[in-house]
């Protein structure tokens, strides 16, 4: 599979994603420059983490207006797989490809630590290698990860199976204590209605090798590849 990794000014997990895809997963990856509109025939697009445009004004806001986003919107519209991690998730929300907003963490602090995630729906291109209820350990590293949506829409997302992951404790229990940033319904990652665009705050690319603690993150990339192969 050929992944396109978008490089915005201020992206800083672009090389980390590239490393996992090419060196760990053994697939192809190409960097896509934000000023361009050509997606170079990639099979899926990753919007990596970082601080696009310094995250000034609002995280992801200016990146959502870059030229390449027009192409990505068209690509998504045609069913292409698009996956946003952290800042990439913020950009997808600002670009209205996914519902909701990411506000400042409840603590108003940047938080970098491992969290537990409960897998909510395994019938998605992003989770198809997992079991429902699986608890994954992935790191978060963000200032604006407080997923905000009115409660009704949030419940609806859950009902429709569009919530991929929720923050939980190590036994899979979802509660306030294990919610690191104040996200509504402890939502950590969501998907669009068509099921081809998803975003999440935790960083799967940071835990895809055992030397870095665990390989839970790799399951997400493997799912994407599996979905594409089908």
């Amino acid at each position, binding site marked *: 599979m050929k992944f396109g990794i978008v490089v915005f000014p201020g992206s800083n997990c672009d090389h980390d994603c590239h490393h996992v895809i090419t060196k760990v997963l053994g697939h192809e990856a190409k960097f896509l420059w934000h000023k361009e509109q050509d997606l170079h025939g990639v099979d899926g697009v990753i919007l990596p983490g970082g601080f696009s445009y310094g995250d000034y004004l609002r995280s992801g806001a200016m990146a959502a*207006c870059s030229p390449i986003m027009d192409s990505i919107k068209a690509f998504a519209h045609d069913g292409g797989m698009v996956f946003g991690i952290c800042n990439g998730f913020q950009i997808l929300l*600002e670009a209205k490809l996914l519902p909701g907003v990411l*506000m400042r963490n409840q603590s108003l602090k940047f938080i970098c630590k491992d969290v537990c995630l409960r897998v909510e729906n395994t019938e998605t291109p992003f989770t198809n290698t997992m079991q429902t209820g699986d608890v994954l350990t992935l790191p978060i590293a963000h200032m604006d990860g407080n997923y905000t949506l009115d409660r009704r829409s949030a419940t609806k997302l859950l009902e429709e199976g569009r919530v991929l992951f929720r923050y939980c404790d190590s036994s899979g229990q979802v509660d306030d204590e294990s919610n690191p940033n104040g996200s509504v319904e402890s939502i950590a990652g969501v998907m669009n209605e068509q099921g081809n665009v998803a975003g999440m705050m935790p960083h799967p690319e940071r835990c895809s090798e055992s030397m870095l603690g665990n390989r839970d993150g790799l399951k997400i990339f493997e799912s994407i590849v599996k979905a594409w192969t089908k």
Partner: protein
Amino acid sequence: MHARIYVTLKKGVHDPQGEAVRHGLAGMGYKEVLDVRVGKMIEVKLGEISREEAEKRLAEMSEKLLANTVIESYRIELL
């Protein structure tokens, strides 16, 4: 020409920053503060442009970039 755009969270949207400021003020003894909301004020300097044109362009910029209209509203003030 100069303009100001005030961007504020819509009513009902939880404001963690405002809440933290209120909490901080209460801790410092300012109990009279009942509520705090933190918004943005964006000051813009524009080149040669008519007032009407300015108003139109600024509204566009606000919609597209300066405010996230899902949770924020904006108000434009031409100086």
